[in-house]
């Protein structure tokens, strides 16, 4: 607005000392009313005061604060058509520009406006939501102590204002939800605005209004994670030579890792060179860290189980069906690690349920079993009994399938079956030791498995050769099976047949929870994945906010041989 503000508006000069609150309110009311009679002078002054935002002198700050308070007292005199310039000036104000007193007065005004008339509700909520993010010039200051202080000031006021509005307008949260979702920065806003916006969303989720809107907000956050996730191409991750095989390093005894020295964080970061400079990866990293912190706070407040149900639902809807999600699934992994007995098992059960349901589409079932296999292999926080019960379920299903189907190898027709067999072998590659030592498990699990593997459908020939080879090597070492035919794969990672059952989606090579990292960092990564948050170990993954480098988000996903 081109309005030139008088240096010392007359109304301000003596009001500081001589006027009472109600006199100022009536003064403002008069100014508002005078517009209707065509006299815009004092009204324009009022609007001018609102446009004052930067480098305010103390008396200007006082004027602004008084004016805002007076306006809050005179909201019923504000008319949406006659005072639109005033309203738009108010709605353009950013709390980030002002100190606590002005921010308080502004928040009070917004609350009064929102509850005074239904017409202002959306505008006021929109204004508060726009305060989620600071003005662009402030983004750099966010990390500084002064910036953090300001951030705390603004966010606490914004969220307190939501609460107040909801107290007086019970349906406001529903409208807020729409506004928050619509206002969410898209993935093309590659600045940090989205990080602080998501922080605010999570704050809403954990607040009182969260009861009403939390579920949808959490799902929107996961959706955004997925969107960022798919923006990062597999080629960006898989530049290194992965022909080394997926098992070599993983099968080393990890017991001694606990004693090993502090991991070198610096080195760890450097080795992420292939993703360095990728702004989307950085954003995703930050968002994942935020989400993990949020999950931890949920766990502390004892409401993880409720939040987990939402996550589970959103996982089913978005993550599971996203083509080879690379990072977003670690949100689930992290939540499971926080509460292995409940959430951890709930996740595994849901995946197994999806796999055995005939009514589910084939890609969903295969994807689910891939997740399950990878989860059972990597989640060191799971009890052996849980893993064996899940495996038993898979083996039983496969056995039943074998009994019902009589035919030769047909990768395409029996793709779900093959993906199940591969999942079992994959888990056993990691967990063989657990089963070999317990005779009961051996008879319950490994004998039916032998039947399955020796069936005419011949899963050993169809499944991913690298998995089969490793499985057979270990089985032989543990003298479990005697396979009459010798399988010679010559170190092949995949075969025509495995490609055929994997389909276009290449679900045969999808191991979602595999950390995709270099040799050196692998041990470190594995360590992080393998220790439950309940353990007091130093390596509690992501457990400490001051060590963000330890978040699993830093781990690159599966070494899918597909890239070869």
């Amino acid at each position, binding site marked *: 607005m081109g309005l030139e503000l008088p240096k010392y508006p007359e109304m301000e000069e003596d009001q500081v000392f001589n006027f009472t609150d109600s006199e100022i309110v009536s003064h403002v009311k008069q100014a508002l009313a005078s517009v209707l009679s065509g006299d815009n002078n004092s009204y324009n002054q009022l609007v001018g005061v609102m446009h004052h935002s930067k480098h305010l002198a103390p008396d200007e700050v006082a004027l602004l604060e008084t004016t805002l308070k007076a306006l809050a007292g*005179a909201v019923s005199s504000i008319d949406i058509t006659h005072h639109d310039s005033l309203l738009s000036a108010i709605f353009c104000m950013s709390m980030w520009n002002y100190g606590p007193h002005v921010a308080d007065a502004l928040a009070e005004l917004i609350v009064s406006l929102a*509850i005074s008339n*239904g017409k202002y509700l959306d505008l006021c909520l929109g204004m508060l939501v726009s305060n989620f993010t600071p003005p662009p010039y402030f983004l750099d200051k966010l990390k500084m102590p002064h910036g953090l202080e300001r951030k705390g000031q603004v966010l606490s006021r914004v969220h307190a204002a939501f609460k107040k509005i909801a*107290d007086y307008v*019970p*349906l406001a949260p529903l409208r807020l939800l729409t506004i928050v979702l619509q206002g969410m920065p898209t993935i093309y806003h590659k600045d940090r605005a989205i990080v602080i916006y998501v922080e605010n969303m999570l704050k809403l989720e954990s607040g009182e209004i969260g009861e009403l809107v939390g579920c949808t907000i959490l799902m929107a956050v996961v959706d955004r994670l997925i969107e960022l996730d798919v923006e990062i191409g597999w080629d960006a991750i898989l530049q290194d030579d992965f022909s080394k095989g997926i098992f070599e390093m993983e099968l080393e005894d990890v017991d001694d890792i606990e004693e090993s020295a502090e991991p070198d964080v610096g080195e760890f970061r450097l080795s992420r060179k292939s993703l360095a400079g990728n702004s989307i990866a950085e954003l995703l990293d930050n968002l994942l860290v935020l989400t993990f912190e949020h999950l931890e706070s949920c766990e502390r407040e004892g409401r993880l189980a409720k939040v987990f149900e939402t996550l589970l639902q959103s996982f089913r809807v978005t993550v599971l069906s996203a083509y080879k999600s690379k990072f977003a699934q670690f949100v689930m992994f992290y939540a499971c690690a926080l509460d292995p007995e409940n959430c951890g098992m709930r996740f595994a059960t849901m995946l197994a349920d999806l796999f055995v349901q005939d009514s589910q589409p084939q890609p969903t079932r295969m994807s689910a079993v891939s997740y399950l296999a990878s989860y059972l292999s990597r989640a060191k926080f799971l009890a052996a009994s849980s893993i064996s019960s899940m495996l038993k379920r898979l083996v039983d299903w496969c056995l039943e399938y074998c009994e019902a189907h009589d035919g030769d190898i047909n990768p395409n027709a029996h793709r779900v079956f093959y993906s199940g067999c591969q999942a079992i072998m994959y888990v056993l590659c990691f967990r063989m030791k657990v089963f070999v030592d317990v005779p009961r498990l051996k008879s319950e699990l490994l004998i039916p498995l032998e039947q399955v593997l020796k069936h005419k459908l011949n899963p050993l020939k169809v499944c991913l050769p690298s998995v089969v080879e490793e499985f057979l090597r270990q089985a032989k070492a543990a003298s479990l099976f005697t396979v009459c035919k010798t399988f010679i794969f010559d170190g092949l990672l995949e075969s025509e047949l495995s490609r055929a059952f994997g389909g276009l989606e290449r679900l045969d090579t999808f191991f979602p929870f595999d950390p995709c990292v270099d040799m050196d960092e692998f041990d470190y990564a594995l360590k992080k994945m393998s220790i439950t948050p309940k353990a007091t170990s130093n390596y509690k993954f992501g457990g400490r906010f001051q060590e963000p480098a330890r978040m699993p988000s830093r781990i690159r996903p599966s070494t899918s041989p597909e890239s070869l």
Partner: protein
Amino acid sequence: MEGLSVADANLVMYLHPSKSRNVSQSILRELGSLLFKFNETFDGVLLAYDVNILDKQAKILSGVHPYFGLRLKANLLLFSPKPDMLLEGKVVKLSQESIHVIVLGFSSAIITAENIRGEFKYRTKDTEELFASKSHKRHVIKVGTMIRFLVKSFDEEILHIIGSLISAHTGSIRWLDRHLEEDSEFDRSSMKSRDREWLGDKTVDEGATPMSYDNHIKMSKKRRITE
């Protein structure tokens, strides 16, 4: 309280074939999505429903629509405030400027100073803000009071009501009810003749409880909505 009504509705709901696996659940979900929103067909806000599915088999619509239609019989509880209806709500905020009320726990209403009759005077008593009647000391409105007020307008999108406390039969429900009882006892004994006067004279002065007051206890009317 007025504005609430029960309606018997004959509805036809169109469901996507993907919902065919669990029809009753998707019907409930569909009806649930209508809750707490103003619906023009119902001419009101749907507050509750009880549904009966009539068809055992659904018809698939011919033509481009793959949807199938289901006939339902539903019992709907509707909230449709119209100007000059009497509503009741709880005061949640009070200032010299206005009284904020929540009706039925979900709809917010505001009564601004110019819609509050002169009888009520704004006062603060031990930091508590209240509106007290000048002529009846006991008639007080403060935060937490249940009040009865007239509807001036209703914003259908936000479900926001603008109300008024101008007419004499509005104010604190507790006070009005007690007053009404006293009045009726009074009426029965000696004031039968004034009774008729009141009926004739609609402009009631402060303190007198108009006879039109029993309006508010009107039984919920039944309506039929056919779609």
